[in-house]
C-alpha cells in the first residue's frame, strides 16, 4: 500500500469515527504520532494554524497532512475529512425519522461524552508535554486558554498568538 493511500485511509477512518472537527484529534494522535509518522510538535503547529487560518477548524488536519506529505498530503486530508460528514446528506433524506429516535440520541450522546473525555486527556498531555520540566508559565498559558476558550468571548486566534508571544519571551 502506498504512503498516500495509507494516510488517506487513516484520516478517513479517524474522521468517520469522531464527532466534530477536533474530535478526531485523539484518534489521529494515536495513529500518526504514536507510530512515528508525525510528531507532537507538528500536531501543535497544525492545531495553531487551523485556528489562525480560514474555514472550519477541522482544517487543522489539512495542515498536518501538508506537514506529512506536502501538497498531496494536504489534498488527501481535504478529501478524507470532507467525505465522512456527507453521509448525513442521504441519511437525513432517507432516515430522518431514525435520527430523531431516543436510541440515536443516546448513540450520539455516548460518542460525544467519550470524545470529550479523550479530548480532555489529549489537551492535558499537550499542556504538560514537557513532563516534569513543564514551566510554570506554560501551565499558566494552559489555564488561561481553558478559561478564555470556555467563555468564548475572545477569538481563538488571539489565544494562539498570545501563547506564541509569551513563548517567544519566556521560552528561549
Amino acid at each position, binding site marked *: 500500500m502506498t504512503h498516500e493511500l495509507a494516510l488517506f485511509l487513516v484520516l478517513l477512518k479517524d474522521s468517520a469515527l469522531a464527532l466534530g472537527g477536533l474530535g478526531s484529534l*485523539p484518534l489521529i494522535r494515536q495513529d500518526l504520532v504514536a507510530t512515528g509518522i508525525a510528531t507532537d510538535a507538528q500536531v501543535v503547529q497544525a492545531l495553531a494554524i487551523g485556528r489562525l487560518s480560514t474555514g472550519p477548524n477541522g482544517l487543522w488536519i489539512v*495542515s498536518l497532512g501538508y506537514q506529512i506529505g506536502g501538497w498531496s498530503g494536504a489534498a488527501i486530508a481535504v478529501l478524507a475529512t470532507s467525505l465522512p460528514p456527507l453521509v448525513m*446528506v442521504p441519511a437525513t433524506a432517507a432516515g430522518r425519522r431514525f435520527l430523531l429516535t431516543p436510541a440515536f*440520541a443516546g448513540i450520539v450522546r455516548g460518542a460525544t*461524552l467519550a*470524545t470529550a473525555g479523550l479530548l480532555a486527556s489529549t*489537551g492535558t498531555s499537550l499542556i504538560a508535554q514537557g513532563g516534569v520540566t513543564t514551566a510554570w508559565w506554560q501551565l499558566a498559558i494552559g*489555564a488561561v486558554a481553558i478559561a478564555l476558550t470556555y467563555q468564548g468571548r475572545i477569538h481563538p486566534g488571539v489565544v494562539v498568538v498570545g501563547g506564541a508571544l509569551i513563548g517567544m519571551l519566556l521560552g528561549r
Partner: protein
Amino acid sequence: MRELVRAWIAIGTQSVGGGTSTLLLIRRYIVERHGWLSHREFTEMWALSQLSPGIHLVALAGMIGQRIAGWRGVIASVAGMMVPAAFVTAAMTAAYGLIANEPLARAALSGMAPATGGMTLALALIMARDARRHGPAVIVDALVVIIAFAILTFASGSSVLVIAVAALLGAFALRRERPESGRAEE
C-alpha cells in the same frame, strides 16, 4: 450555481478560526443575503449536522447544497467551502515550515503547545456540558467522560474502541432524558 459556489468560497475564506464565525457567515450568506433557506430550515439543518461524523460544518454545507441544487449543489458547496480555505491553510503551513527550526519559532511553539492544549481541554468541557443530561443521569454521563479520560491517560487504550463502546452503551443507557413537567424538553 455560480452564485452558490461564490457564496461558499466567501464563507470558507472569510471566516477565521472556524466554529461560530463560520456558522454566522453561513447564516448571513445562505439565509439573509440570498434567502435560499428560511431561518427555521437553517436551524433544523444545523441541529441535524451536529449528529454527523467528522466536521459538522461540512455536513451542514452538504445538506444546504443538496436542498438548493441537488448533488451538484453538495459538491459545489463542500468544495467551495473547503478547497480555497484548505489552500490557505496549507500555504500558511508551508510558510511556517520555512521558519519552524529558527530558535524564535521553537520558543513560540513552546507557548503555542499549552495554548492549543488549553483550548482542546475547554472544548472537551463544552462538549460534555452540552451533551450531558440533567438530574441524576448527569452522574452516569460524567462517569463516561471520566472513564474515557482515564483509559487514554493511564492505559493508552484505543480511542476508537472507547468511542465505539460509549456509542453502543449510549443506545441503551444514555437515551434522551424524559421531559419533566414544567420544563420544556431540550
